[in-house]
């Protein structure tokens, strides 16, 4: 009899139980948590965790709550709702992303797409010395050292999970292909030649 009762009370709400556990984990975490990490901490199946995250995603969404669940940087994390952005801005700074210059964005782009990549390689593409810009990005926590060129040589840089979080990327694979964005070598070359032809001999 007692056993039966216990079965009823626990079996009636395992999904709810799990959702609450995930809420608790997400509210104390300092980084986005991947499904596997949530599953290990909650001692649940990843598939159950995904179902529970679905429920939480509906409850913690824009327009329904001040707390919003987002899938970002390879995991799940809470953020403040966009509706509360003015109040948040009055209380909190956004130091990592404030005043990112064009130079910083280009350098970040090169590291995000080509990384890990060394400073000389970035300088070669941008055509200017990038030491200062790279140091600034390291200080902001948007990039970090990630190994060295071959076994010898220059330090190589990669973007951090904070970068993915700030730019709202589920992972680096979510970056659009730049070949699709722009024109290719042939087109640029064609234009160079067109200019050259117009030039008086």
């Amino acid at each position, binding site marked *: 009899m007692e056993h039966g009762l216990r079965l009823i009370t626990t079996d009636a709400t395992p999904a709810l139980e799990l959702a609450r556990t995930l809420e608790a984990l997400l509210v104390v975490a300092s980084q986005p948590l991947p499904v596997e990490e949530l599953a290990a901490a909650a001692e649940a199946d990843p598939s159950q965790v995904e179902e529970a995250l679905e429920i939480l995603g509906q409850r913690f969404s824009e327009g329904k709550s001040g707390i919003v669940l987002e899938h970002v940087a390879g995991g799940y994390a*809470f953020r403040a709702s966009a509706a509360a952005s003015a109040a948040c801005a009055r209380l909190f700074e956004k130091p990592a992303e404030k005043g990112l210059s064009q130079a910083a964005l280009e350098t970040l782009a090169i590291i995000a797409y080509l990384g890990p990549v060394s400073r000389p390689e970035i300088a070669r593409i941008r055509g200017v010395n990038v030491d200062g810009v790279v140091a600034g990005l390291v200080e902001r926590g948007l990039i970090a050292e990630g190994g060295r060129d071959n076994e*010898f040589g220059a330090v190589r840089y990669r973007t951090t999970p904070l970068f993915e979080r700030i730019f709202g990327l589920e992972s680096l694979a979510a970056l659009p292909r730049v070949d699709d964005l*722009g024109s290719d070598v042939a087109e640029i070359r064609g234009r160079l*030649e067109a200019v050259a032809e117009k030039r008086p001999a």
Partner: protein
Amino acid sequence: MPVAVRELELDLDAFEGPFDLLLSLVLREELPLSEVDLAEIVVAFVERLAERGELDLDACGEFLILISALLELKARQMFPEEDAELAELEPEEAAEELARRLAEYRRAKEAAGFLRDRLEERRDLHFRLGPAPLAPQPERKLAPQAPEKLAAALRALAVEPPAPSVAHMALRFPPVSQFLDRWRALLRRRSRFDFDQEVDGLSRVEVAVAFLALLELRKQNEIAIAQAAPFAPIRISRADAERSLSWNTVSA
């Protein structure tokens, strides 16, 4: 009123002020040209021209002369070896190479544009940086330890310190230049070598001077020095190898 090229106000990453001042700083070598984005200067000038609404040929001429001189100077400074590389190419190939580099930079610019848009979209979104106020404090755990370690630590504390040595007073220091020559000769034959192997059999002082010579070569940008971990072999390589890059594969 004509556009005064030299009074053109610039607001660059590396410099803020009139073009004239930039020129004199560069010529006095107080501002490295490698830090200056010349394209920004061109943009600033074109914007100034556009504000006026009519073509000022004198200003354009003066600007072209100045900016092309700066461009040439910068190219020579930045790619001394590559200049030679490009000069060896046929005009066709050189154009191809130039187009390739321009395309690569253009991709970087486009990707930066995407990031800028993303930043704009997420400008209003806030999340917590750092730990939660009432997050649990993790406990530091320690794996089982061998009790012999304690006895060893105690014995180490009971070892008498060595008597002060005066041996170094009689040491003779070989000149650094001797090792500079030696390393340069070695690097002409081989692109990389292992420091420890090359100094095997030398005295401690000689090894130290040999190492000083390496630091000097590193300062001159002739070599790269690498060591996988403290006390691991020190590897020296010529500072010229270049990795190939691809915009298509993204590493996670």
